[in-house]
């Protein structure tokens, strides 16, 4: 945040470009005029073209997801031209020798045909798969950015909800996608899906028979997943992404705190041309990187796995990374099952699969509302929080990441065991405890770090930055003078809101009559509120800054002594 002191005396400018450049558009005529008479493009464009977007690298994470999705649509269309979603058995006679003559489903045969006999087919398949990996990963880091900076706060809670739905639906989109080639690995994944559905108490068997059109594997699942993968889910995703973007434009982007950035403005570059060039350019960069990944890194070599055969399996059977945490939970879960009468309750699958995912996505969805209830903060927020200024939120976020990461490790416990020469059983046992203890430790450490950073910020505002110069005083003592902060930095470090924890309100008045108070705070909520923001370090007040400046000025430690009058900082 520290920025070199700005020197130019110029005032900030609203854009002052001379309009009369050579070749400039002078009137809305020609095709533009034709369009304007039908769509009113000039009316829309006059505001939209110079709409301001703030610039920060982390604001581009969501764009990676968006562009990956576009790449998924483009490459997906190419793949549908050759892929045949049928489980009918045929004999392979394509150009991959090591499978020639084997019986396989048409789905797998067409995947092989696409990979070995259609020029560019394998490349596009690999781009499509890498784009799916990147789409999910970008959504995840984008969500983390939103979470840690508090960008989901009012008025953006609805967009957060859309994001949560996008995240969970995309996971299903990916899962239905990697199940399509009908190779041994995807079939193993389907077998897991079958078992997971069967584990749902009471209705599981019915749902499984309905999804698979009878017993596993049946002959319908590929065609059904295909419909979900190329029509149902993408259609919903597209609609939700449209709404997500519309709300983003409508609310205007959030911005990081800094000089001139307030809750009432948005500072950045105009849509046309800078943002358009940067966002458009970034699309090509994402697309280019994905093509290069498809060209140089092979992914999902289905021909190695061979056609699906329900009596075969391969070591290292894992889902794609975004299902890995669920896989990990299933792997480290102890074998709990209840046999009540003639029924079987498979807690060992139901809890780490359906229940875990339900709890995870529900908590994500509810979080903005829970936080605002805890803090009592009902204001609009357009300035982002620096993660340190919300220590409990940041701690919870890191705890969640730790939980997720440990489950992830669980999903690859066999690979970890073989590659780090560990015992598979020891890794599993370690994770069984670590998934509960790890997040607690991570929370405590993170919260402490945040509070220390807050304290350091406070010190910095009051006493300036360390100069790195050691000075010996006449009486022999050594000290390090501190340099005062720039106004920009001092503002950036103090502009945030300090949440005062809510206090419990009396629910009876002095006569012992219950008070009807819509703003009443229960003891539980007050305790939560204290837990949430009670430890936050106070922001220096005007008086404290003035006092510290005065103290600093009279102190020989001050680098520039009395030439300084920091009282001006809060003129």
């Amino acid at each position, binding site marked *: 945040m520290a*920025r070199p*002191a700005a020197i*130019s005396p110029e*005032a*900030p400018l609203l854009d002052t*470009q001379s309009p009369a450049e050579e070749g400039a558009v002078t009137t809305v005529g020609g095709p533009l005029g034709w369009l304007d008479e039908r769509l009113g493009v000039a009316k829309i464009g006059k505001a939209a073209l110079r709409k301001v977007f703030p610039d920060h690298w982390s604001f581009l994470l969501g764009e990676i997801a968006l562009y990956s999705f576009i790449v998924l649509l483009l490459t997906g269309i190419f793949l549908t031209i050759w892929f045949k979603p049928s*489980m*009918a058995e045929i004999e392979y006679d394509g*150009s991959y020798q090591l499978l020639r003559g084997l019986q396989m489903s048409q789905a797998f045969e067409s995947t092989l045909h696409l990979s070995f*006999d259609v020029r*560019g087919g394998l490349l596009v398949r*690999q*781009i499509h798969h890498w784009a799916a990996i990147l789409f999910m990963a970008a959504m995840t880091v984008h969500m983390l950015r939103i979470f840690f900076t508090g960008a989901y706060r009012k008025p953006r809670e609805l967009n957060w909800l859309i994001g949560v739905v996008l995240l969970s639906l995309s996971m299903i989109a990916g899962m239905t996608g990697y199940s399509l080639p009908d190779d041994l690995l995807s079939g*193993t994944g389907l*077998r*897991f899906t*079958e*078992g997971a559905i*069967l584990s*749902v108490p009471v209705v599981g*068997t019915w749902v499984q*028979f309905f*999804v*698979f*059109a*009878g017993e596993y*594997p049946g*002959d*319908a699942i590929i065609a059904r997943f295909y419909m979900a993968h190329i029509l149902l889910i993408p259609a919903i995703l597209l609609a939700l992404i449209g709404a997500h973007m519309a709300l983003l434009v409508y609310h*205007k982007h959030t911005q990081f705190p800094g000089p*001139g950035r307030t809750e009432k*403005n*948005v*500072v950045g570059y105009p849509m046309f*041309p800078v943002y358009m*060039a*940067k966002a458009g*350019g*970034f699309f090509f960069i994402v*697309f*280019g990187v994905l*093509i*290069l990944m498809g*060209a140089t890194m092979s992914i999902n070599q289905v021909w190695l796995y061979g056609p699906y055969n329900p*009596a075969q*399996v391969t070591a290292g059977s894992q889902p794609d990374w975004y299902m890995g945490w669920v*896989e990990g939970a*299933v*792997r480290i879960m102890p*074998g709990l*099952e209840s046999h009540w009468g003639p*029924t*079987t*309750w*498979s807690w060992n*699958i139901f809890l780490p699969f359906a229940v875990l995912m339900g709890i995870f996505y529900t908590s994500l969805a509810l979080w903005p509302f829970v936080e605002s209830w805890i803090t009592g903060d009902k204001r*609009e927020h357009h300035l982002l929080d620096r993660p340190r200024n919300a220590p409990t939120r940041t701690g919870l976020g890191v705890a969640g990441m730790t939980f997720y990461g440990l489950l992830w490790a669980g999903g690859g416990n066999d690979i970890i065991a073989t590659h780090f020469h560990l015992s598979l059983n020891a890794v599993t046992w370690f994770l069984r405890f670590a998934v509960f203890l790890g997040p607690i430790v991570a929370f405590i450490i993170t919260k402490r770090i945040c509070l220390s950073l807050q304290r350091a910020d406070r010190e910095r505002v009051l006493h300036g*930055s360390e100069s790195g110069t050691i000075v010996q005083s006449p009486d022999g003592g050594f000290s390090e003078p501190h340099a005062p902060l720039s106004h920009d930095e001092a503002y950036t470090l103090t502009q945030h809101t300090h949440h005062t924890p809510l206090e419990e309100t009396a629910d009876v008045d002095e006569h012992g009559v219950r008070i009807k108070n819509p703003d009443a705070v229960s003891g539980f909520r007050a305790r939560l509120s204290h837990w949430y923001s009670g430890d936050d370090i106070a922001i220096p007040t005007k008086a404290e800054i003035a006092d510290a400046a005065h103290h600093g000025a009279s102190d020989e430690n001050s680098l520039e002594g009395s030439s300084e009058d920091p009282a*001006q900082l*809060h003129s």
Partner: protein
Amino acid sequence: MTHDQSTLTPREQGESDLPVSDPGIEPHVERYTDSDPRLSQRTYHQVVALFAAVPVLAIAFVVIYFAVPHTATAELLGQRWSIQPTLLGLTAGLGVLLIGIGAIHWARQLMNDTEISEERHPVASTASEKAEFVAAVNAGASDAGIKRRGMLLGSLGGAIGIMAVPALVTLADLGPWPTAATRKETLEHTLWADGVRVVNDTNWIPLKAADIEIGQLVNAEPENLRDLHGTEYQNMKAKTALIVVRMDPNSIKVPESRRDWQVGGILAYSKICTHVGCPISLWEQQTHHLLCPCHQSTFDLGDSGVVVFGPAARSLPQLPLKVDAQGYLVAQSDFTVPVGPSFFERDSRNDYKKGDR
């Protein structure tokens, strides 16, 4: 750190209740490309050169598409490459990437980079807007007669709602209904039956008990599976798959009730994991442990298939074996319990539990 008095001059009056006042947007500082015409000219040429490289790559792509056979390979960087897809990807990827890099270079170095500020307005409507809205709603409601004829809205809602029922009912044919009778024919039944020969999977060689060595593992199927085809074959194979192992009879525990299920230390178990149904055959001949590669459930085949580790909760079902007149291994019956993953209606009271006799 240089310190200039002028930096402390507020550039714009910010919110006064903050500890430090808002200094306002930093003044714009010129880039080298703004101040040095030669540099900006060079940058201009760089951007054009980036864009100009794209057609070259596009042509290279087309040439490779037609000229490089898809069987062409090359040894490079320690592995064998299939060069057609790789070269197609490198040319296309680099081309697309250069468009992006050129556009960004242009935006960063040549486009005006003065930051501008746009005002935000509260999302919520003003009081007068809210009042107009309320008026509009009331006018509409009154025009429709909602207030006066109270049944209208309710009956419309009910009519629309009830149509969800026919819509949902049409989904009832998604699959057969797993009633008790259906389950008996599907989930709770396999091809194994009295006298069905055990054959090696894939090459269909029938297994002679005398040929099986201690420490041997056979991935087996019932001989009559060969009569099935297509979906029927796959569905059945997903349940009938068998692992036959031979262990030193002195090193295993055989409960009283299963004494005659084995032939001289030859035991047969379902290959389908009782957790989520992966086929398991990672058998350690010395420990007799069988590991599932999907979720690492471990079963002890020397102890009637009980779970010794991992998320599975039920023993692996054992198939009673015997030898027929020609010395071949055959089943005595179907499995005594349903194989594969648990399902709600599964009666799991008859599964083998550790310590059962």
